[in-house]
C-alpha cells in the first residue's frame, strides 16, 4: 500500500528507471569508468608507481609498441592454442558425457554430481593440487600414465612440450562438466516425437543423432563454448598456480603477461593499451560468434 502511494504519479518509464538506476550507476562506476580511464591512460606514458611524475600524451605509441612486440604475439599464440584445445576437448567430452547422462540408468544422479564436482572448486586450489598430481616422483598423474604405458620419468610442468598440455588437461578436467550441463539441458529439451517420427521413417541411430540430436543441441553447445572461450581468454589464476607461466614463457597467457606489465612492472600506459587491444579482440570475436550462433539457431 505504502509503495503504491510512493509511486503514485510516476510514469511506468520513471518507475523502470528507478529500478534499473542503481544497477546502471554501479555499472558506470565499476565497469564503464575504468574502461574509459584505461582508454585514456593507453595514450599516455603513465607509470602508476612513479609518484609525482605527470603522465604525458604519447598518441598511438603504446599501441604500436604492443603490436610490434614479438613477445606479445608469442603470448597471443600460447593463448590461442590453449583456447583451441580446451574448447575442442570440452566440446567433444562434454557432449559425450551429456549423451551418456541423458540415458536413464542406475546411479545417473550420483554420477552427474561427481562429474560436476571439479567446476565447484576454486581455480587457484585446482592449480595447486594439480602441481602435486603432476609431480614426477610422487604424482598420481604420472603413476597412472606409467601404469598403462611405461614412459619413465617425465615432468609435465617442467617441460616446454608438455606444460601447455598440462594446463589444457587441468582446464578440461575442471570445465568439461559445465559444457556437459548446458548440453544436457539442450538434450532434454528435444521433443520425443521427433525421435518417434524418425523411428517410423526407419532412420538409424546415427541418422537420428546427425539430423535431430546434433542440430538441437548445437546452439546450447555453442553458447557453452562462448562462455568458456571468454573465460579462457582471461584465464589467470589456475595457470599461475600451476606453472607461473613457465617453463620460461611456454604457458604465459596474454592475461598473465598483462598482469606482469601492469602490476609488477607498473607500465600503466603500455598495459592499458594492451588491455584495450585484448578487449577489442574478445569483443570482436564475441560479436562475430554470436552472429554465427544466431544464424545457426534460425536454421
Amino acid at each position, binding site marked *: 500500500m505504502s509503495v503504491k502511494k510512493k509511486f503514485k504519479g510516476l510514469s511506468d518509464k520513471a518507475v523502470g528507471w528507478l529500478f534499473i538506476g542503481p544497477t546502471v550507476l554501479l555499472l558506470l562506476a565499476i565497469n564503464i569508468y575504468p574502461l574509459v580511464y584505461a582508454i585514456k591512460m593507453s595514450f599516455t*606514458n603513465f607509470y*602508476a*608507481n*612513479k*609518484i*609525482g611524475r605527470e603522465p604525458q600524451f604519447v598518441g598511438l605509441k603504446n599501441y604500436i609498441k604492443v603490436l610490434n612486440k614479438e613477445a606479445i604475439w608469442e603470448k597471443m599464440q600460447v593463448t590461442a592454442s590453449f583456447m583451441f584445445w580446451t574448447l575442442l576437448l570440452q566440446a567433444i567430452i562434454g557432449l559425450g558425457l551429456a549423451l551418456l547422462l541423458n540415458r536413464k540408468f542406475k546411479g545417473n544422479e550420483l554420477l552427474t554430481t561427481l562429474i560436476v564436482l571439479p567446476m565447484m572448486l576454486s581455480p587457484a586450489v585446482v592449480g595447486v593440487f594439480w602441481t602435486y598430481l*603432476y*609431480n*614426477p*616422483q610422487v*604424482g598420481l598423474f604420472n603413476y597412472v600414465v606409467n601404469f598403462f604405458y611405461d614412459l619413465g*620419468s617425465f*615432468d609435465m*610442468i*617442467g*617441460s*616446454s612440450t608438455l606444460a601447455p598440455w598440462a594446463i589444457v588437461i587441468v582446464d578440461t578436467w575442471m570445465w568439461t562438466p559445465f559444457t556437459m550441463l548446458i548440453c544436457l539441458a539442450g538434450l532434454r529439451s528435444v521433443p520425443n516425437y521427433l525421435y518417434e517420427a524418425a523411428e517410423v521413417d526407419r532412420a538409424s541411430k546415427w541418422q537420428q543423432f546427425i539430423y535431430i540430436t546434433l542440430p538441437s543441441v548445437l546452439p546450447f553447445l555453442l553458447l557453452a563454448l562462448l562462455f568458456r572461450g571468454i573465460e579462457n581468454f582471461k584465464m589467470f589464476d589456475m595457470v*599461475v598456480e600451476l*606453472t*607461473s*607461466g*613457465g*617453463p*620460461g*614463457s*611456454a604457458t*604465459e597467457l596474454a592475461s598473465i603477461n598483462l598482469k*606482469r606489465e601492469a*602490476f*609488477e*612492472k*607498473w*607500465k600503466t600506459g603500455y598495459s592499458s593499451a594492451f588491455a584495450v587491444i585484448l578487449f577489442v579482440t574478445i569483443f570482436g570475436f564475441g560479436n562475430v560468434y554470436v552472429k554465427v550462433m544466431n544464424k545457426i539457431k534460425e536454421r
Partner: protein
Amino acid sequence: MKKIMILLFVSLFSFSVNSNAKSITLGWAAWDPANALQELTKEFTAETGIEVNFEFVPWPNFADRMLNELNNKGKTFDLLIGDSQWIGAGAVYGHYVKLNDFFDKEGISMSDFSPATVYAYSTWPKGSKNYYALPAMGDALAWAYRKDWFDRPELKSEFKKKHGYDLGVPANWNQLYDMCTFFQGREIDGQKRYGAAINTERGSEGITMGVTAAMYAWGMEYENPNKPYDMEGYFNSPQAVEAVEFYRKLYEDCAPPGHSDAYMVANLDAYKSGQVAFQMNWYAFWPGVSKEDSDGRVSGFFANPKQNVAAATLGGQGISVVKYSDKQDLALEYIKWFARPDVQQKWWDLGGYSCHNDVLNSPSFPTSTVYAQGFLDSMGIVKDFWQEPTFVELMLPMQEAIHDYVVNGKGTAKGALDKIIEEWVEVFEADGKL
C-alpha cells in the same frame, strides 16, 4: 540498557584510542626469522609499552603486497623490513623516511654495522651517506649438504677413486658439479637420491637469485664500472655466458625430477625429505635446518663456492620507517631499540642474522653455530641485483629469459643474456638513465 550501551561505547572508544596511540604494525616476509623477531619484540613491548602487530606475507606474494601498499601510500605498516632491492624505490619515490637526522640525534652510527650490509640495505644512492634503513637481517645465498652421507667411508673412497680428491665441501663449482652428479640417482639406505635442489622458480625472483650465484662466482659484472648502465660485454661477457651454461648443466644433471619451479620452500622440502645431497638456500633457513636434523641426518653448511672469484648472492633486508605512517615517532623508537648492541646479540641468539659489528666481531661468533663462519665469509663477498627504483622491471625479463634457457632448454645462454640487456636498456631509457 542505556548504561550497557554507554559502557560498551566507552570501552570500544578506549580500546581504539589505546590501540592507535601505543601500537605499531611491522610488515615482513613470513619465514623463520620473522618468528624470531616476534619473540624478540616482546622485550620491546615490555620496556616501552608499545604493542607491535606483525603482518607476515608469504614470499611469493611479499613484493606484490608490500610494493602495492607503498605505491598506494598505504598506512597499514609503520615499519617495513623490505628487500634490499627496494631501497632505490623507497628513497626515490619517497616511501621510506630518511634516517640520517634520527641516527645523528640518537647516536646511532652506521660504522657500528658491517659495511657490506650498510651499503646493501641502507644507502641510496649506493655508497652514499643517505640512510633509509637500519641493517636488520644479514643474509646471503649459501649451501647445505648431507654431512652424514659425506662421512660414509664407502662413499668417500668411491668418490676419491673416481675423481681423485676428497668428498667434502666443494672448493669450486666444478667440484660441486662432480659431487652432485656422484649422488644423482644413487641409492642410499634403499632410497633413490639426487644431487642438488637449486633455485629454478619462475614467478618472483628465484631463478635469478640462483643463477647469479654462479654468474658472480664466474666474475660477471652488471655494468661497466666506469660507465654506468653500459652492460654490453659485462653482463653478457664470456664468463657470464659460461656461468649460465653451467647452471643449466647443474639443473639438467643434478636436480631431482620435477624441480622446475622451485625456490626456498621447495629446496627445503627436497632436502628435508632426504631427496638431495645439497640444497641452495638463504642463511636465514639454516637455524631451522640445523635444529631439525634428525633420523641420522647431519647437515653441513658452506658459503657459495668460488669459481673465478669468491662471491655470493646477497639476500637480507633493512628495517625502514614508512613515510605514510601516522606513528613515525613510535616506529623510530623501535629502530632505536633494535639498534642497541644487546638487542642485536639477542637477535642473533634467537636465530636472526645481526649485522652489528659487536656481534659479528665477537671472538665467540664464528663458533657460535655451525653456519656462523660461513655467514661471516659470505657477508664479505656479497653482490646484489640492481637496486634501482625500477628493479622489478629489471627482474622480470631476467626471470623469463633465464627460465626459458635453463629449465625450458630454449635458445642459448648468450641469446638469453642479450635479450635481457635489450629489455634492460628499454627500462633504463624509460627511466631517463640512458
